[in-house]
């Protein structure tokens, strides 16, 4: 038995923790890539805003868009609901009331991370300490993941956690593909020699570089990267990999008929990208479509589980 309210809290707790982690990875890899590129190569921090999807909110509060403004906004700004510190705080708020369902250590991990990010957020902005701060966020989330996979009953609450995590992760992968990969495909000549560095950055931001190399054994080329991040079911951050996870969780949860159409729609939109993987604008549009389908699934999850008792 799982209360709808508890399910809602676990689902959002999982999403927010994943979001904090994903954002930390993206900012970390972006910083690394930009440091690798020589000055003179068009380097801008603005794509970061597009990936995280908070351009409008940023523009409301900022005139310029320089590195430290953008990074602060994405990492340390409590007024930005999508920043790393805000995401961790939202996760904690949601998980506070699920202590009798999640393993005891899970709450403690989240609480520790909340205390750390609240105290040290500014060190995530400063270039010299940024990687350390962001890596701590990533590794604490991994610790939480370890506690949950190692100590939690495979019950409805577990499946809801995995569902929220996979949905959020799929969303981030489509954002990275839709913004950064699409931009690289659309204008390969502007980055010329640094093409490979940029594609490595795309892979890095999803912690996919090593696994891509293992899986493909070939050079790093745009079409290969896109195909890997979209379709490789064995990679847990690919859209297809996340979708497998989503389907597996939904199959163990009640009311599968309510969520089935939304899952079907995601699969359909993936099939339609297959043909266009080499075309930047088409990729961007296709990723928008997948994101919309994910949003529909999010609503279906709400209808299926949170409103089941109405």
């Amino acid at each position, binding site marked *: *038995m799982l209360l709808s309210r508890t399910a809602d809290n676990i689902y959002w707790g999982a999403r927010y923790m994943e979001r904090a982690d994903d954002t930390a990875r993206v900012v970390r890899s972006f910083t690394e890539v930009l440091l690798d590129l020589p000055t003179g190569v068009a380097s801008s921090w603005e794509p970061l805003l597009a990936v995280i999807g908070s351009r409008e909110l940023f523009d409301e509060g900022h005139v310029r868009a320089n590195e430290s403004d953008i990074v602060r906004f994405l990492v340390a700004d409590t007024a930005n609901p999508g920043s790393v510190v805000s995401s961790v705080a939202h996760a904690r708020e949601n998980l506070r009331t699920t202590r*009798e369902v999640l393993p005891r250590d899970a709450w403690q991990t989240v609480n520790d991370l909340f205390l750390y990010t609240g105290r040290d957020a500014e060190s995530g902005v400063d270039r010299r300490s940024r990687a350390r701060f962001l890596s701590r966020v990533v590794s604490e989330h991994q610790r939480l993941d370890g506690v949950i996979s190692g100590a939690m009953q495979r019950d409805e609450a577990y499946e809801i956690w995995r569902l929220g995590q996979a949905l959020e992760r799929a969303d981030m992968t489509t954002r990275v593909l839709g913004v950064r990969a699409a931009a690289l495909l659309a204008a390969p000549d502007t980055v010329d020699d640094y093409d490979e560095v940029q594609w490595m950055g795309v892979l890095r931001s999803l912690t996919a570089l090593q696994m891509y190399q293992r899986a493909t054994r070939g050079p790093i080329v745009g079409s290969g990267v896109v195909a890997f991040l979209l379709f490789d079911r064995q990679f847990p951050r690919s859209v297809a990999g996340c979708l497998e996870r989503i389907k597996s969780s939904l199959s163990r949860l009640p*009311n599968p008929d309510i969520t089935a159409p939304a899952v079907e729609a995601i699969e359909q939109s993936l099939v339609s990208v297959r043909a266009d993987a080499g075309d930047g604008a088409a990729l961007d549009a296709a990723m928008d479509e997948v994101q919309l389908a994910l949003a529909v699934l999010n609503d279906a999850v709400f209808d299926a589980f949170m409103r089941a008792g109405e």
Partner: protein
Amino acid sequence: MAELRTQSGMWDELIEEDGSPRPAAERLVDQLKELGMSELQQRQDLAELDIVGMGITFTVYSDGRGLDRSWPFDIIPRIIAADEWRRIERGLMQRLRALNAFIDDLYHDQRIVADGVFPAGLLEHSVNYRPQCRGVSPKHGVWAHICGSDLVRDADGTMYVLEDNLRVPSGVSYALENRAISKRAFADLFSQQSILPVDAYTDELKRMLTSIAPDGIDDPSVAVLTPGIYNSAYFEHSFLAQRMGAALVEGADLVVGDDDCVYMRTIAGRERVHVIYRRVDDLFLDPDEFRPDSALGVPGLMRAWRAGNVGIANAPGAGVADDKVVYAWVPEFIRYYLGEEALLPNVPTYRCVYDDERQYVLDHMEELVVKPANESGGYGLLVGNRATRAEIDEARANIEADPRNWVAQPILSLSTAPTLCDGRIEPRHVDLRPFILSGASQYVSAGGLTRVALRRGSLVVNSSQGGGSKDTWIVEG
């Protein structure tokens, strides 16, 4: 280590007046002396680390925000000899049988009023009387299923009942956690002597709750109803739900169907609830019948309860016996309903509504604590030996103007127990809150929560005001 001191004129729970340990405390005192201060302090520090690590917290409010504070704990246990404890236990069970009979009578025929034992007019003053409960017959005739009665010991060693908390008493989870910590701190003592285990409480609680399920339900579903995360006792609500394997629900998680049954909203749809252990005050239980603005409650819950479709502990309306005036009549209830004499004394209470008792109060103001009957939280309370002339005169005038609203009690000297304070062992005042369960049968927690006033001379044991707690050992002789 210095000798364990007592405070002159006070009863100490562990130490006799001549400085030697009481028989049940001998092994503990030996061990304390063997350990010495620095080892003892080290164990205290470890215990405090355990408390942080186990996340045992209570919530205090400041700036409108709830903050989790670690539970204050003193490592030196309070000890009660098992034979004394058995007498206390019998006294508490007797008391609850009488209190439940009284509540049941009040909401039915009011025989006790008709027979002239309990004055008719008093009920109109009780803020906890619920006319909505009239004529309802909860199972086993029990209304107060969980009671936390506060016990204090006076200078002559007599244990008194100071008050009965019959609404939503809290503290039992801390008593259980205190034991977990003290077992680590004094592992060897637990193997050397017989100290009654406390862990059975949550099983007994589950058994009691199961016994008040609607008739014909074999395997009832039990839920703990909490006001939510911002309630100061949320830790306890969550703890008890976990230990009983019950659902922890908030008002919005429950719904009363057209069939007058209560359901939880789960991800698989509605699921029936048979018993609710509510930690929400009466007035917030059901916005249809009590406070319409309550978001903590469940519309229709009272209807479901009256239809016998859900057991609620404590029953709505049980708080009517949680009242300073009603308290004064408990010895009479025991006589009237059970035909017995009270095994556990009340603090002598003078009821100003009676001429002779009022006269005594007016003549002895300096020796008494004067309490208004319907105020809580110490408001309007007068301690005779600390009051000014003018305050006493004012209280006197108040009593004469509205005698019904006043009671008075002698000023007790709360007993002490050795407590670790700033690297020394000092006597500090303690009380005891045992928990009494009543359903198909009765059960009393083995000991209960000992609270200690950590400040010298202070009588305030509340954790929100600088009070701490101790493990309570019932030791077989």
